[in-house]
C-alpha cells in the first residue's frame, strides 16, 4: 500500500469514473497539493452535476416545447423526404398515430395541387438551403385541405436532416379575405352615402317644383299625367337614395330598446301577405329573447327584404323560418369573423328552403347593386340595406347557403343593457291646415333648395327670411329681434353647422323652435345616424306637404 491520502484520491477518481459523482473527497487540512487536488475534484463534480441538471432541465423544456407547441414541428430526412419525428400539433393534424407520420414522406401530406411547389422547396433543402415561409396546401388526416407556411433549417450537424415548422394560416387567409370584403363594403358605403346626399338635394328641388307646377294644372290633362309620372319617378329615386343611406349607415334613425319577438310578431302579418300562400312561415321564438336597441322601422325593413329574397328563391313555394334566440359570441367566433365583437347578442335567423346561393354569390351578396335576379326585377339593394342597418345597430349579419338546399341569414344584434321600452307609436297624421302666418328663418346653403323651401312656405302664408350662411342668419335674426318664430336649418353648412347657429340664436331666444333638415347623418345632432332626443328633424328629400307638416307641428307644440 502507498500513501493513504493518495489512495483516497485514486479511490475518488475511480468512483467518479464509475458514475458516482455524489461522492466527495475529504481534505486533510494540510492545505498542500493533495488537498488542492481533492478540492479540485470536488468542485469538478459539483460543476458537472450542476451542468448536468441544467442540461436535463433545458432538454426537458425543449422536449415539452416541441411536443406542446401549437405550431406543427417535425424533423425531415432530406435524402428520402421522410418525416423522422413529429410533435403533438403535427400528430393532431396528420396522425393521429405516430406511425401515420413517422417514416412517411412529407410529400404524401401535400395537396396534389401543390406538389410542384413542394418539389421546388424540397430541392432547395436537398441542396442545403434553408427555406422560410414557403406556402403549401396540405391535406390533413380528416381529408380537409389547409394552407400552411413551411420553414426548414438544415441541421448543422448533418446535411441529411432538416428541422421544420408548418404554420397553419388557413384562418388567417379567411380573415384576410373577410377584412378585404369589409373594407370594400366600407368604401362602397362611403361612395353610396355621398351620392345619396347630393341626390337628396336634387330630388328635393325636383319634387317640390314638380308639385308646384302640378298644382297649377287641372287633373284631367295630359300635362298632369306627365307630371304625375315625374313625381312617381322622383319618389322611386328617393326610395333608392334611402336604401343607399341605409347601406352606408347614414340613415337617420330613432332607435329604442325593443323586444326582438315583438318586432317579429308585428311584422309577421305583413310578411304573410307579402309572401303569398305558396310559402309557409314558421316561427320559433325564444320566449326569453333579449331586448336590443334598434329602429323599429329599420327592423321591419330587414325582415321584409330577407323575406322578399327568400320568396324569390322559392318560386315554387317552400318554407320560411324565422327564429329568435340568445347567443353569446365568444373570442373563438370573433377570431374567425371580421368586424365582430364578442359579447351577448339577440339573434334573428331567417331561413328558406329555396334554391340557395353558390359561395361566389354569397361572397358578394351584400354588395350594393349586386343581384342575380333578371334585369328590372331587383335593384340589388335589398341585402345591402340589411347589411347597413345591422351594422348601424352595432350588429353582425352572416349567411350560410347551399345550392339546392336553401339559405339562412343570421343577424346578431347587441343585447341592450336595459329592459324593453314601449313600442313606438306610429307618426301622427299631419295637421289638416298646413298654412300659417308666422315668421320662419330658413337657413340653407343650397341655393335651389333654399329657393323652393322659401316658395313653399311663402305660398302657405308664412313670412320667410332666407339665409345662405350662418352669419347671414344671425344678422337677419338680430334685425327682426323677437319676430322669428322658427328656425328651419340644414345641418351641414359650409362654414358652420345648423346646430351651432341654433345654439347661438337660442342664447337670446331660448324658446325658439328649430327644425333640422338633412339628407346626411355625419353631424352634430345625429351621431352614427342616431338622432338626439327631442330634436325635430326633416329628412331630405322632402315633399312640400312634409315640410309644411313639420313646420306646423313644431309651431303648434305647446312646449
Amino acid at each position, binding site marked *: 500500500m502507498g500513501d493513504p491520502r493518495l489512495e483516497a484520491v485514486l479511490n475518488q477518481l475511480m468512483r467518479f469514473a464509475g458514475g458516482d459523482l455524489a461522492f466527495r473527497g475529504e*481534505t486533510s*487540512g494540510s*492545505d*498542500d*497539493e493533495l*488537498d*488542492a*487536488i481533492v*478540492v*479540485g475534484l*470536488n*468542485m469538478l463534480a*459539483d*460543476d458537472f452535476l*450542476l451542468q448536468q441538471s441544467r442540461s436535463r432541465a433545458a432538454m426537458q423544456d425543449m422536449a415539452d416545447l416541441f411536443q406542446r407547441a401549437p405550431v406543427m414541428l417535425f424533423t425531415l430526412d432530406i435524402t428520402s423526404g421522410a418525416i423522422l419525428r413529429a410533435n403533438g400539433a403535427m400528430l393532431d393534424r396528420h396522425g393521429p398515430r405516430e406511425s401515420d407520420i413517422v417514416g412517411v414522406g412529407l410529400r404524401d401530406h401535400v395537396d396534389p395541387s401543390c406538389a410542384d411547389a413542394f418539389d421546388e422547396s424540397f430541392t432547395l433543402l436537398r441542396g442545403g438551403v434553408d427555406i422560410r415561409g414557403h406556402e403549401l396546401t396540405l391535406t390533413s388526416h380528416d381529408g380537409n385541405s389547409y394552407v400552411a407556411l413551411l420553414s426548414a433549417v438544415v441541421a448543422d450537424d448533418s446535411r441529411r436532416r432538416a428541422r421544420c415548422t408548418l404554420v397553419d394560416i388557413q384562418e388567417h387567409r379567411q380573415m384576410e379575405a373577410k377584412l378585404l370584403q369589409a373594407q370594400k363594403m366600407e368604401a362602397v358605403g362611403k361612395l353610396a352615402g355621398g351620392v345619396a346626399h347630393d341626390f337628396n338635394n336634387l330630388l328635393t328641388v325636383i319634387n317640390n317644383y314638380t308639385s308646384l307646377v302640378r298644382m297649377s294644372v287641372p287633373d284631367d290633362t295630359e300635362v298632369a299625367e306627365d307630371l304625375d309620372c315625374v313625381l312617381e319617378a322622383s319618389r322611386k329615386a328617393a326610395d333608392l337614395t334611402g336604401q343607399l343611406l341605409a347601406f352606408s349607415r347614414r340613415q337617420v334613425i330613432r332607435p329604442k330598446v325593443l323586444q326582438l319577438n315583438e318586432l317579429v310578431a308585428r311584422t309577421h302579418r305583413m310578411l304573410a301577405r307579402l309572401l303569398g300562400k305558396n310559402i309557409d312561415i314558421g316561427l320559433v321564438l325564444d320566449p326569453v329573447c333579449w331586448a336590443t336597441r334598434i329602429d323599429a322601422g329599420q327592423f321591419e325593413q330587414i325582415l321584409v327584404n330577407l323575406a322578399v329574397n327568400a320568396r324569390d328563391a322559392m318560386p315554387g313555394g317552400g318554407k320560411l323560418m324565422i327564429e329568435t334566440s340568445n347567443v353569446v359570441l365568444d373570442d373563438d367566433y370573433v377570431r374567425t369573423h371580421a368586424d365582430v365583437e364578442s359579447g351577448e347578442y339577440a339573434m334573428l335567423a331567417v331561413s328558406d328552403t329555396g334554391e340557395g346561393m353558390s359561395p361566389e354569390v354569397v361572397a358578394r351578396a351584400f354588395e350594393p347593386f349586386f343581384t342575380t335576379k333578371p334585369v328590372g326585377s331587383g335593384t340589388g339593394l335589398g341585402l345591402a340595406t340589411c347589411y347597413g342597418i345591422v351594422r348601424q345597430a352595432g350588429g353582425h349579419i352572416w349567411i350560410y347557403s347551399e345550392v339546392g338546399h336553401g339559405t339562412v341569414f343570421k343577424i346578431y344584434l347587441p343585447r341592450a343593457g336595459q329592459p324593453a321600452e314601449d313600442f313606438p307609436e306610429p307618426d301622427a297624421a299631419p295637421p289638416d291646415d298646413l298654412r300659417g302666418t308666422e315668421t320662419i328663418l330658413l337657413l340653407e346653403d343650397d341655393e335651389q333648395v333654399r329657393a323652393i323651401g322659401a316658395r313653399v312656405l311663402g305660398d302657405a302664408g308664412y313670412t320667410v327670411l332666407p339665409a345662405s350662411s350662418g352669419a347671414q342668419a344671425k344678422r337677419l335674426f338680430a334685425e327682426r329681434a323677437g319676430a322669428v318664430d322658427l328656425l328651419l336649418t340644414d345641418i351641414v353648412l359650409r362654414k358652420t353647422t345648423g346646430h351651432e347657429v341654433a345654439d347661438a340664436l337660442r342664447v337670446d331666444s331660448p324658446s325658439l323652435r328649430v327644425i333640422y333638415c338633412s339628407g346626411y347623418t355625419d353631424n352634430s345632432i345625429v351621431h352614427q345616424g342616431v338622432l338626439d332626443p327631442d330634436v325635430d328633424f326633416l329628412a331630405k328629400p322632402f315633399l312640400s306637404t312634409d315640410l309644411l307638416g313639420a313646420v306646423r307641428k313644431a309651431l303648434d307644440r305647446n312646449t
Partner: protein
Amino acid sequence: MVAEVLTPPDEAEVIETCGGRVWLANGIVHEAVDIAHLELKHVRCLAQGIRTLVGDDTQSLLLADLGGVRSASSDARAYSSSAELRALVAAQAFVVTSPVTRVIASFFVRVFHPPFPVRLFAGPDPASAWLHGLRPAASA
C-alpha cells in the same frame, strides 16, 4: 489553516460580514474571506459589505484574500461572476497562498469566466500594483 495575508490598516473602516471582512485602502476594496466552505450566502454578504462601503453605483477594484477558504460551492462561484457583481467590481485580484486557494480561484476564473479582469497573485503587493495599473478604467 493558512493565515490571512491581508489585514486592514488601523484607520480603515472595516465592515464585518458573514463571509469575511471588507475595507477600503488606497482606493482598493479589500476583502479577507475567512469562511472554510464558501457558499452563496457568504458571497452575497461580502457583496453587500462592498455596497455599504462604496455605494450601489460604484465599480470598485477588488483585492480578495481567500486565505481561509477550503472549498467553494458552484453557486458561490457563479454569483461571483454574475452581472450583479459586474455592477460592483471593475477588476479583481486574488491573493492565493496555498495550492487549495489557487485551485479554487483558478476554477472561478477558468470555469465561470467572470465578466471583468481577474488575475491571481502570490502576494498583496503585486496584486495592488496590477489593480492600480487599471485605475484609469476604474472609478474607485
